[in-house]
Structure formats: structure tokens, C-alpha cells
């Protein structure tokens, strides 16, 4: 092929550059811009330096939302990852039942977020919902189940929604990881007389390291950014009990129109997500290497 003498090839990169500029760089810079100014109206803004950052970092409501967010995302990982692994281990390995369970597992992943919210709201409603009516008829709870009645009820509903929606993703990833292990590994373990627990610890888990890293990162980011489910369920209530970071952020930005603080907030938010992704990645990359058989 003939080589071009000039740098015309840069023109070919231009479309991508324009798309990325408009989809990522310019919006991000706008947010940075907002975070440094107090905006009173169109064309009426005052530069305030890092004031919004200081304000946000000492904001009690943000701290509370952040705390809730950590608990929520932590619970999500603690439930979804082990559950996903268990499901993957229990799934049939071949034949029609394998295909059937894969398809069944994938169904929740295909449903849009707000539809999930609606499904679960109806399912848990105390007057017509199957779950709501069912649990209340058992008469076990001191206050009848109603996700607007008690923070714990709202949390249980949210958790159920999240776990139902996203555990299949973890399970599918783990399943793919498990299927990639050659049969000879299991034979070798059998010859060594390894127990099935040892097979899990020394073959399956290490071999799933890659997919588990992806699963943890995806679920962490996604659950940390959760918005649609609590918004659809109670709009952040009852009280502020399900006001997670993004719910609070949207209230701040579009409810109160505090664009400056909201911009500062979202940058901090972004950095937190990034920091934790980095930490998880590093930990998962190195955990359990060179361990000893006990």
C-alpha cells in the first residue's frame, strides 16, 4: 500500500474525536465549570473557587446519603456475588436444561429499570400485591408491610429488586468462567483425592478470578449509581431512608437548582466510584495468590 507523505490520516480520527468531545469531554468540562461558579441565571455567574467543594464535603445530608450508599452497595455485593456463584455452580452443564436455565436467568436482565420498579411496587403493595397481601395475612409483622411505612420495608423491597434484577448477570459471568475450566482439572483433583470444597477453593474460584473481578466492578459501579429503583419506589423515602447519592444529587440539581454545589458533588461522586473501582481491581488481582493448602 502506498504511504501518505502528509498527516492526512488524522482526518480519519476526527469523527471519533468530535463524538467523544460532545458526549464526554464537553459535558464533563461544563460540570467542572459549574462547580467553580455561583450561577444566578443565564449570563449571570460569579467565580467562587473551591467553595462548593468545601460546602459539599461538610454537608451533613451528603454524608448521610454517602453512608447509606456504602451500606447499600456493600450489601449488594455481599448478596449478589456469593449467590451468583452458587447459582452458577448449581446450573446444569449441558443439554437442553442448560440452555433453558440460561434463558430463564437472562430474563430479568432484559427488563428496563423503571419497569422493574413498577413490577416490584405492584408485587409488594399491601392492598393488591401478591407479596404484600401474602405476608400481611400471615400476621407476623408488628406494623403491616408497606414499603412507605418503614425504612426497613423500603430497603428490603429495594434489595429484593436489585438482587432479582442483577444476580443473573453475576451468575452468567460465573457460569461462563466455570465452563471454561478444562475437564482435566477436575480429573486431576479427583486423582489427588481433593474434596469438592478443595476443588472449589483451588480450581473453580481461582479460575473465576477474571470474571469475578468484572462482576464485582460492574455491580459496584452500577449499584453505587442506583437511581431509578428508589425513585420509582418511594422517591427516596420514607423520610430520607432511601435517599442515595444520585437521588440526593438530582434533588439538589433539578429540584433546588443548586447547580454549583451539585456539580461539585457529582465530581466528588465520580472520584469515589473511580477510587473504589481501583481498590477492588487491585485487591481482586492479588487476593489468594500463592496461598498454602491447609
Amino acid at each position, binding site marked *: 500500500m502506498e504511504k501518505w507523505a502528509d498527516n492526512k490520516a488524522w482526518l480519519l480520527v476526527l469523527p471519533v474525536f468530535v463524538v467523544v468531545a460532545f458526549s464526554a469531554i464537553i459535558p464533563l468540562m461544563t460540570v467542572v465549570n459549574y462547580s467553580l461558579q455561583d450561577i444566578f441565571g443565564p449570563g449571570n455567574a460569579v467565580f467562587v473557587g473551591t467553595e462548593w467543594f468545601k460546602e459539599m464535603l461538610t454537608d451533613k445530608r451528603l454524608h448521610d446519603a454517602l453512608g447509606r450508599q456504602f451500606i447499600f452497595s456493600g450489601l449488594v455485593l455481599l448478596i449478589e456475588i456469593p449467590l451468583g456463584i452458587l447459582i452458577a455452580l448449581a446450573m446444569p452443564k449441558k443439554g437442553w436444561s442448560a440452555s433453558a436455565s440460561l434463558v430463564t436467568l437472562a430474563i430479568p436482565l432484559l427488563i428496563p429499570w423503571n419497569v422493574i420498579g413498577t413490577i416490584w411496587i405492584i408485587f409488594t403493595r399491601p392492598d393488591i400485591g401478591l407479596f404484600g397481601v401474602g405476608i400481611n395475612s400471615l400476621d407476623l409483622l408488628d406494623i403491616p408491610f408497606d414499603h412507605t411505612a418503614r425504612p426497613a420495608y423500603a430497603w428490603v423491597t429495594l434489595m429484593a429488586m436489585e438482587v432479582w434484577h442483577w444476580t443473573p448477570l453475576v451468575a452468567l459471568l460465573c457460569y461462563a468462567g466455570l465452563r471454561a475450566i478444562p475437564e482435566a482439572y477436575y480429573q486431576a483433583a*479427583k486423582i489427588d483425592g481433593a474434596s469438592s470444597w478443595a476443588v472449589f477453593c*483451588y480450581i473453580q474460584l481461582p479460575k473465576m478470578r477474571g470474571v469475578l473481578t468484572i462482576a464485582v466492578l460492574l455491580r459496584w459501579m452500577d449499584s453505587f449509581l442506583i437511581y431509578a429503583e428508589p425513585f420509582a419506589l418511594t422517591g427516596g423515602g420514607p423520610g430520607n431512608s432511601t435517599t442515595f447519592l444520585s437521588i440526593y444529587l438530582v434533588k439538589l440539581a433539578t429540584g433546588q437548582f443548586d447547580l454549583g454545589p451539585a456539580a461539585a458533588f457529582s465530581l466528588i461522586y465520580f472520584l469515589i466510584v473511580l477510587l473504589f473501582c481501583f481498590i477492588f481491581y487491585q485487591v481482586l488481582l492479588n487476593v489468594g495468590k500463592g*496461598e498454602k493448602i491447609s
Partner: protein
Amino acid sequence: MSLALRNVDKIVGGETHLKGIDLEFETGSRNVFLGRTLAGKTSLLRIMAGLDRPSRGKVLMDGVDVTGVSVRKRGIAMVYQQFINYPSLTVYNNIASPLRRSGLKKRDIDRRVRETAEILHLEELLDRLPAELSGGQQQRTAIARALVKDAKLLLLDEPLVNLDYKLREELRVELQDIFRKRSAIVVYTTTEPSEALMLGGKVVVLDEGRVLQTGATAAVYQRPETLRAAEVFSDPPINALDSTVTDGRAAMGDNIPIPLTGHLAGLADGAYRFAFRSNHLWLSSQGEGDVAISGKVELAEINGSETFVYVHHGKSAFVVQQEGVHPFAMGAPISVFLNPKHLFVYDTAGRLVAAPPAAGVAEQQ
């Protein structure tokens, strides 16, 4: 210890993987299963290991039926084609893993791990993880895992296939030495005749789930009882041309007269298949008594310092293996020389009628 297979069949989903296998192995013996892909080598190993149950027949250890006994209780070790090690354990712990359940003292385990590591030149790598090793080192670790527990039955399923040429040669030489010092029954599967010859011991030639021939490796190479066994035990596969003997005169292929002397003397009249290995063909006459076979070059394949020339002769074809690089144009006429003292004679059903005297073959090897 002795291990015996009695009339073993293995049928999976209506497909016969093994049929009527009768074999015996003695302690300290080195055995090579030679056969092409899908010949049933791995199926047979798995049954010997106890990983699979035969569909019919018995596996006897020291005369005791162990057909249904779990692999855990058999005291065997196996090395696979893939490099199988525990991914999260260091080389040291990988080698130690088969000993963990043995109830040995820590000090004894340590000693044995280090001894085994030394045999396989892994001393410097004991703290590494398998993923940090080269393919050859990974397979050395896997072999060390198999050797460390002094199993009575050591099975190796094409252990060198996934290694590059250099490493393969190196490990092959070392393995011979390691096997010689073992008192176990060693069974090694391969698709390569040269590997089987190198390992020596006894060979079991397998094809389509059946045993074609057993015996001392060199002896089987020198006298393959069937044309099929000769094909499996030659690389490239042995060449065979339709031939006839009428009134004491032999004609091979396209009417090439073959003098019936030496081991060919006294062949009865009839139709035969005359077979010859590719390395017994020459591109120039090597001396008196050589027979010329003419044909057309179909393809000349240069492989390392050797050339494989595929030649069309009448309705049949054969391959010449020649040292050195010899380029040929496609379709070029060619004359190939063969000394009839290297001819194998098979009847039309593929049974051996006459083989070259052993010394002649040994000299070529």
C-alpha cells in the same frame, strides 16, 4: 504390582470407543500406547486410572477386580496434554498437593517435594505461580506433581504435544531417564512413531478402539503384523502399492519388476500389497539392486532440513522422505529408488506375509 484389562469395551452414546481390549502390565514396565487421534488412547487411560468405568470387561490390580473402585483409592498419577496445575498455588504447593492427604510429616513432604523438583529442574521456581511459568515449566510442574507420590501407576496422556519442538526433545530425553528409575507401571500415549521408538519399552498399537499389535517397541516397528499397524507406526504412513506375483515374477505398482531374492524368495503366486517406508526411498540410486519407480511430483514439502516429496505413480501415490532441501516443480517427472530388501509384503487383507530381516531395519534406524 500388575495391572490387567480383561476384554474391556467402552461404548459412549452408541459409539464404540474401545472394543475387546486385553492387556497386561508389570511393575517397572514402560508402555507406549501408539495410535492416531481418536484411536482410543485417552479412553483406555481413563479406564486404567479409574476415571471411567468400562461398559464391559474388568480391570484387575494384582488379580483383584478394581473395576468399580474410585480413582481416589487407586494410587495413580496422571499427566495431561494440557498443563494442569492449581492456578492459585505456588509450584512448591502444587507439587506438595498430592501428598497433603497422605498423612506424611511436614519434613518428609518438604524433602520429597524438593527431591522431585530437583529431578525436573524446578528448584529455582518453587515460589512462582503456574501463570508465571513458561509452558515447558508448567508441564514440568505437572509431571513433578505426578512423580512426587510414587504412584504405582503413572499415566501420561500425550504430555509433550503442547510444547514447542525444542522443549519436547529436551523433556523427552529426560523423561526416559526418569522412567527408567521408577518402579511403577508407566503408560505413555503418543501419536508419533518416533516418540514411541525413543521411549522404547513395550508398545500397544491402537486403531479405532482396538489393539492392533503389542510387543517390544522395536520389534513391532520391524514387524508390523498388519498393514494398518505399519501405517500407524510410520510417519509419514507407510506406502503400499498393489503388486502381483505370477510364475515366480513380481510386479509392483505400474509393472515394476521386483527380483524375488532374500526375504522375498519363495513368495507364492497371487495378489499382494508391497509396502515400504518413506525413509527407504531415495532420489538417486544408492547402489546395485535398487529398483527405479517413476512418477510425477504432486507436491514437495520442505520441513526443516528434510523434504517430503509426494509422488503420483499410476493410480497410486506415495511419499519420499529425503534429507536436505530439494525443491521440485509440481507435475515434474521423477524417478525414485528403492532397494527391495526394505520391502514389506502384505496380502490383500493386510496381513504380513514377509518382512525385511530385522538387522536391515535396525541399521536404518
